[in-house]
């Protein structure tokens, strides 16, 4: 079942002599339950693609459909609600709210919808991410790996159609990086979570079942590994 479709997506920044084409006619489909890695050098356009897929940015041209919703038709409010319910975002620098506890950070997408968490699912997520005993801590009291796990827990709490991870291990040491990738794989297997991960690290990319290579804003290789 197809969960993501990009049709001729382009993104151009600036105008005139300062014009920079970040993405050029990207066509891409991702099925439910897939774990896709997008790999590319710095400036290849992979982060731009992730921002467009996460509805935090809009394409200059083309169409993006996630779970049947055309992102180009959404206004700012609709895009925010879509992000909250359908997309989980994980950043390199975690982006946790420093003044909130880990638990409140994780539950924030539900709180924005005035929804109560399913206790069982919440415990399952925090338990599998090894955060059960750190729920009352503030982000600054956690290690980098723990902070990233909290960010993943937050992105999974709404059972999103698509989890987008932007260099999730980019700021972590080897041990923590392996742990995070294992967590992502676990959620992919156990929760049938569709994951699209951006990385510049080939070794990390090889953990995914499909690797897409971007260069100069274009997909130059799409390789299924299993």
């Amino acid at each position, binding site marked *: 079942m197809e969960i993501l479709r990009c049709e001729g997506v382009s993104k151009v920044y600036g105008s005139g002599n300062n014009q920079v084409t970040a993405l050029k006619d990207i066509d891409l489909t991702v099925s439910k339950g897939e774990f896709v890695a997008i790999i590319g050098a710095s400036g290849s356009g992979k982060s731009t693609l992730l921002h467009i897929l996460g509805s935090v940015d809009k394409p200059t041209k083309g169409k993006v459909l996630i779970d049947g919703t055309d992102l180009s038709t959404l206004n700012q409010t609709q895009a925010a609600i879509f*992000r909250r319910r359908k997309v989980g975002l994980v950043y390199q620098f*975690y982006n946790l709210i420093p003044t909130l506890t880990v638990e409140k950070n994780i539950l924030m997408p539900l709180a924005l919808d005035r929804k109560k968490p399913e206790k069982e699912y919440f415990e399952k997520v925090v338990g599998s991410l090894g955060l059960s005993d750190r729920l009352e801590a503030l982000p600054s009291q956690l290690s980098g790996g723990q902070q990233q796990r909290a960010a993943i827990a937050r992105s999974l709490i709404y059972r999103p159609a698509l989890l987008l991870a932007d260099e999730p291990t980019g700021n972590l040491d080897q041990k923590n990086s392996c742990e995070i990738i294992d967590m992502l794989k676990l959620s992919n297997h156990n929760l049938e979570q569709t994951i699209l991960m951006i990385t510049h690290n080939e070794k990390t990319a090889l953990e995914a079942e499909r690797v897409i290579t971007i260069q100069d804003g274009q997909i130059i290789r799409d390789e299924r590994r299993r």
Partner: protein
Amino acid sequence: MWKHYARDFIKNNRSSGFSVRLSAFISALLLSLLCGLFYNDWKYEVERIEIEEGGWHSRITGEFDRDTLESIKNFATVKEAVINQKESTDTETVVDLYFDRINTVIPDTPRIALLAGVSPDKITYNYPLLAMYLVRHQEDTAPRLLFPLFILITGLASFSLIIIIHNAFALSMNARIHQFGIFSSIGATPRQIRTCLLQEAAALCALPILTGNLLGIGGSMGAMHLSNVLLGSHIPGRHQAVPGYHPLVLLLTLLITVATIWISAWLPAWKLSRLTPLEAIQNTGELQLKRRKNSPILALLWGAEGELAGNALKAQRKALRTASLSLVLSFLAFTIMQCFFTLSGISTRETYFEKYQDSWDILVTLKDTDVDAFQETGTVQGLPGVEDAVVYQRASAKTIVEEARISEALETLGGFSHASGKFVTKTEKGWLVNAPLIIMDDTSFLNYCQQIGASPRLDGAVVINQIRDVTNPDFRHPVFMPYIREENAVSVLRPAGKEEAEVEIPVLSYTDQVPTLREEYATLDYYELVHFIPVSLWREIKGELDGAKEDTCIRLLGKEGVTLEELNALQSQITRLLGQTYALESENRILEYEINDKQIQGLKAIFGGFCVLLAIIGTGNVFSNTLGFVYQRKREFARYMSVGLTPGQIRKMFCIEALVIGLRPLLITLPLAVLAVGYMLKLSYVAAGEFLAEAPLLPILLLFLAVWGFVALAYAISWRTMRGIHLAEVLRNDTMM
């Protein structure tokens, strides 16, 4: 978001809301003070109208029998119907009507008139009183400006406050753009972000609004009390104000305050909520320069630290806008106000108090009284403690100055070529000019004649034969010259408005000496030819001339070295003597001097208080800015330290920033104040040396030092927080990114 984020944020970051709280408090205080003062002013006006005109709403005049009166009293909306004995005559009765609800006055009075069989033209409305309750009749065309003025002033105050305080909200909100970017990226809608920010603002401002309002109410009461102490009821036509308050005023004040603060908070909240998650999340909260900037003066004076401090100040320009604006405005307004009052004090002292020092002690104005009808001249002149008393009245007349009569000196200056057509008219015979008459009681006129060496007679006039050099605008040091040739033994006067008629009176003397009266001559119209005449002559010619002004004045001089107590006693004696027969107002020179002094002190206190409030807003903003940016600047300083800047050099940067912020108001104010004072000196013809001798340097210096001291304190506190900086920790801590 309130429950999960904002509440915790407020609880855990008490210092960050300081400037927001301070701004809300000051806004509430100012607006509450404004509304309280307006209410008390309104109340005072109502009381004044009730004292002067009466508290009736409308009145009908006619012949009423007992039954008609009874049915008027029983009219549904009438509270009371009272026969006004004073206004009633033998043939007609005047009935004052009071209504239960004031908005029924205009529709119901004609119905009552109809019921009483009185024609509508016999209805009178108390327009001034009705207008105070916003009830206007179409025939009342007078511009009642109290309410429009209040709306205008309140609107302007709210607008100014929004301009000044919205930055305080922006500062607190913008410090967390990155966090709101995270919220946005996990699905918070712009509306949710806006609502959260406004809820936060409401929670922060609730207590300051209430406190500010209560203090404002107290302040307005205090101001009314102060006006009673300063002005009392000594000023003619003024009564003691009774301070008061009404729950509706509190409601209105709260409404205006909340609206002002809500708009101030909504503006940055709206701007922030419109940011895309990408824009917000990429915002590190650090101070950035959009373009390369140079700080050559600071670099020259303090080297690299000066350059860095200059750039930091430029990057903070937006955040420090409120501070800069408030401090500059406060200092500028205070300096110019002080200079203005000093200059105005010198001017008033020289042109009024010193000029009329020996011209009067008490001046009594007899309302609607003609000088020839006043019988008590001898009694007043004989009162113990009275050295001299002159009873006089002004009247207007015209005369023609023929070409041949113009003096040589005036001719040399071009004759009437500089005269304004408003006062002087060219006719076939010559120039038609104003010839104001000062009609003096006979005794005083004879004394005056003796004083100037004229023959003491009661059948002629003394003509003031002098004119100012109209080409010299320096009113403080005028040069006089003879106006006309002193050849004619008679003066031909013409009634104002009926210039074809003529009245010929003998001229007893031409002189340049005026009698000792508190009067000014030829101030607006330089070409007027003043005539002093005795009341005996006026009785003979008034039928042909008319033109007498409404009131008669009595100028009294006490014994030499008279005290305020003696003058007060004399004033009471005269009021007792004449108050029964005449409507009068009286002024007392020493008291007037003291009142004038108190009024200036009061005005200075009000304006000075406003300037100090502005300075508080400014320094409050400096405090919140320096303390609010601690985290962002920790990162900035960590970078400097990582390239080798020592803590001592960073402290130097702080000192330079504090110095510039504190010095800026002075540097901007100085040239502007010099220009403003120069202009005022030019207009008032006060010599620069004279002003400099009394220049208000001390209060200006004190305000400057106070502002500078507070700015330095803000930076000192900020430095204490900052000095424990741990380089590795700051550069590693990405929760700030």
